[in-house]
């Protein structure tokens, strides 16, 4: 099998992992210092770069492949499960190294995201994954981004080595609760996944605090949950996320709407989960992390987020007594709760209100959509209608027509 044929199989097998981040690692470059020679290949500059976008709207930042899609596990939601009939392939360590470097030199990618089906044993699999990263770093002086998927039961020595070469490590929790995991991924053990994440957090913190500790995954760890393959509702998913963020210092939790896979199992839902559900979960995740909302506030209207409107607007419509707010006097925390205001626009309002009584033209200039904020915000030249704020018409006014929604789905 030639490289392109293997790549077709092993990239196809990797695409259900939503993570694409290449940001937040230590800064490195390979430029000559004081007239010396170039040192290796590559750089990382804090922010990541999306080198392309596929028509699914996802950023292509890393060469995301599996080392092999042969797998001993039979996780029903996974295209690579043992009982699936998909064609199998396996890269050699050298092939992945060469492909990464060839793509990188042409500026197609920021680096490598390498995962693997579990073959023979967790240690055997992890060792091969680590060998790719080690060769890139040591044989080729590669300074680009490396994300390695961690096999939960791999030995601590291999995990240490992985952290030495990788920028990010991740372990997918896959499903929000243990009952679903037992049903859909019988060989996966939720406990050992948690324990492995705890182990990563311990090492990441140690590397940060103790100057003599060896380098360990400077871009931290992340995880992914599949949405819509089991019966878990959005509240359960968000509760799990907030627990994981608090416990393991995760940089990100990725949500991946279950989508039909070739050769899928009869035990799975036939229909894909709406992409809008995934989108709402990301919005809710953002509200939890940056806007001071709790899971309970976000899901007080029910276990499932409203697909027709974003969770912040939904909260505002349930909590109309909180509004209207006075743009001149409201606190930052209060302004962050106004539908239509984001972190940047709130900062700009706070700075400009020291200079002027903020009017609608000012908001328009700092790119605030007046139609969205007008019902909730009192301005120097605008007094929101209390009647409108209390009436049912407000929903019609703020929520896009169902026809547009169907398109968005």
């Amino acid at each position, binding site marked *: 099998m030639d490289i392109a044929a293997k790549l077709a199989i092993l990239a196809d097998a990797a695409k259900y992992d939503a993570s694409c981040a290449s940001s937040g690692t230590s800064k490195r470059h390979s430029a000559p210092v004081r007239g010396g020679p170039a040192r290796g290949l590559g750089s990382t500059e804090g922010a990541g770069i999306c080198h392309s976008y596929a028509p699914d*709207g996802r950023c292509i930042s890393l060469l995301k492949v599996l080392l092999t899609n042969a797998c001993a596990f039979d996780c029903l939601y996974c295209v690579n499960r043992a009982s699936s009939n998909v064609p199998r392939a396996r890269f050699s360590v050298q092939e992945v190294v060469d492909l990464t470097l060839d793509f990188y030199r042409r500026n197609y990618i920021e680096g490598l995201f390498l995962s693997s089906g579990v073959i023979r044993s967790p240690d055997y699999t992890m060792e091969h994954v680590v060998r790719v990263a080690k060769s890139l770093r040591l044989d080729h002086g590669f300074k680009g981004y490396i994300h390695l998927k961690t096999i939960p039961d791999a030995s601590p020595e291999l995990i240490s080595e992985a952290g030495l070469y990788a920028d990010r490590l991740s372990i997918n929790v896959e499903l929000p609760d243990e009952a679903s995991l037992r049903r859909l991924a019988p060989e996966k053990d939720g406990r050992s996944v948690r324990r492995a994440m705890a182990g990563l957090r311990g090492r990441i913190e140690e590397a940060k605090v103790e100057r003599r500790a060896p380098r360990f995954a400077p871009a931290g760890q992340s995880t992914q949950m599949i949405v819509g393959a089991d019966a878990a509702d959005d509240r359960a998913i968000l509760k799990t996320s907030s627990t994981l963020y608090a416990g393991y210092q995760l940089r990100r939790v990725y949500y991946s709407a279950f989508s039909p896979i070739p050769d899928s199992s009869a035990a799975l839902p036939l229909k894909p989960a709406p992409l809008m559900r995934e989108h709402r979960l990301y919005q809710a995740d953002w509200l939890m992390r940056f806007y001071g909302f709790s899971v309970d506030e976000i899901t007080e209207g029910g276990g499932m987020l409203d697909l027709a409107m974003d969770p912040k607007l939904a909260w505002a419509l349930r909590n109309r007594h909180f509004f209207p707010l006075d743009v001149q006097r409201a606190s930052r925390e209060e302004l962050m709760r106004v539908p239509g205001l984001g972190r940047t626009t709130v900062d700009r309002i706070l700075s400009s209100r020291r200079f002027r009584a903020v009017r609608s033209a000012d908001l328009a200039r700092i790119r605030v959509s007046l139609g969205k904020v007008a019902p909730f915000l009192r301005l120097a030249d605008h007094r929101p209608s209390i009647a409108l704020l209390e009436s049912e018409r407000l929903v019609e006014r703020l929520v896009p027509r169902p026809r547009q929604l169907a398109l968005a789905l």
Partner: protein
Amino acid sequence: MTPRRVVLAGPADVAGWRAAARRLLADGVPAEAVVWSSGGAEDLFCDAADGDAEAPSPPAPSFSVPRAFVELADAGLLHSDPGRFDLFYRLLVRVVADRSALGDAADPDLVRARALAKAVRRDKHKMTAFVRFREVGTEAGPRFVAWFEPDHHIVEATAPFFVRRFAAMRWSILTPGRSAHWDGQDLLFADGARRADAPDGDALEAVWRTYYASIFNPARLKVSAMRAEMPKKYWRNLPEAPLISPLIAGAARRTADMVAAEPPAPKKGQRLMSKPKPERLIDETAIDALRDEVDGCRNCPLWADATQAVFGEGPGDAEVVVVGEQPGDKEDIAGRPFVGPAGALFDRAAGEAGLDRSRVYVTNAVKHFKFEPRGKFRLHKTPAPSEIAACRPWLERELAVIRPKLVVAMGATAARAVVGKPVKIGDTRGRILESAEGPDVLVTVHPSFLLRLPDEARRREEFERFVGDLRLVAPFVKAA
């Protein structure tokens, strides 16, 4: 007043603009009295013969301006808008007169300046993303050449990125306005080039296209999201772009096929991995058996959010068992008791009390960590009586195996678990409660109580009292 005319060295001559702006500012020239021209192709009215162009002059005094303005101007001045030099000079005059002028986010000049800077930063970012090198064989080895069409005058400003990243390669980036060349040591800029000057292909592009087509998920088409980040204007220089239309066109059919397909008969499970029973690292003694068992405990809901059950630690024949409340954040991560701040304080107090810490078995009344997630942290929550009761059998079994002479209960939760009913610490602490059938009991405070005391003097006093309580323990250990 005759207008002052400034001719810059080129459309990206930010240094020239700075020098001229300093001079104008020193001369007190108002913004409306300056005519800027870049000398570039964009400058239709540039007349080289015009005598009153600004002559090179000695360096003008420098003015201090906020860092934020410098950053804004450095980016915004590279925009292709012919009015940019004028706009930034006007803003400069205002900022020098009143440093707080930048604070008003709704100011029209500032809004425009920010828009220019943002467009330039985006253009630069897209250049780092969408430049595609093609490899060319030369006698001196491979050379990598790219053709790119930026919107603004960003080649000089963006080229250092490619040096930092591709220093070991020889490369050229050709654009209609400027070209950048790197030979491994030096970065050189030259005039613009034509598309035909760049190579028209690279054998690896077919492999890249294979990757692009394979990483795309046809079940989740989001064309507008793609186009927002990768606008069509870039497509003509992206080798993967010709695939976009056919991939979109085929997506619906591929998804429908996947959904309609009969679930296939599962393949006979290959034995790819033997799953041996995990080897025991430790002898199968009674206490280790308990340790394995407790991790599967589901007697109360606390297991669901915790990482693991944290069992006791210490000699299996200890004379003294010390019971704390529950594992904290650190203990939950490490899987070991008493490794957090409260544990460290206990160790210190035990040392002062002359207690041989290595002879003491330490454990908790509740084995899973109870907490409330709060952003990036977990806030400790006191276990409920039902949770203490649910966990009590584990403590009883631990004590039954170890058979200590004394149990030290630290804090109300531990006291409740050990005694079996609510206990007032203040009334019972500091004396050995003898028991006919079981081990004797000593109640004292939990070290985390000491950590929470805000008053330094009070904390010292309470620490001494705690050490005093622990002094009562030492004889039990020595008696062995």
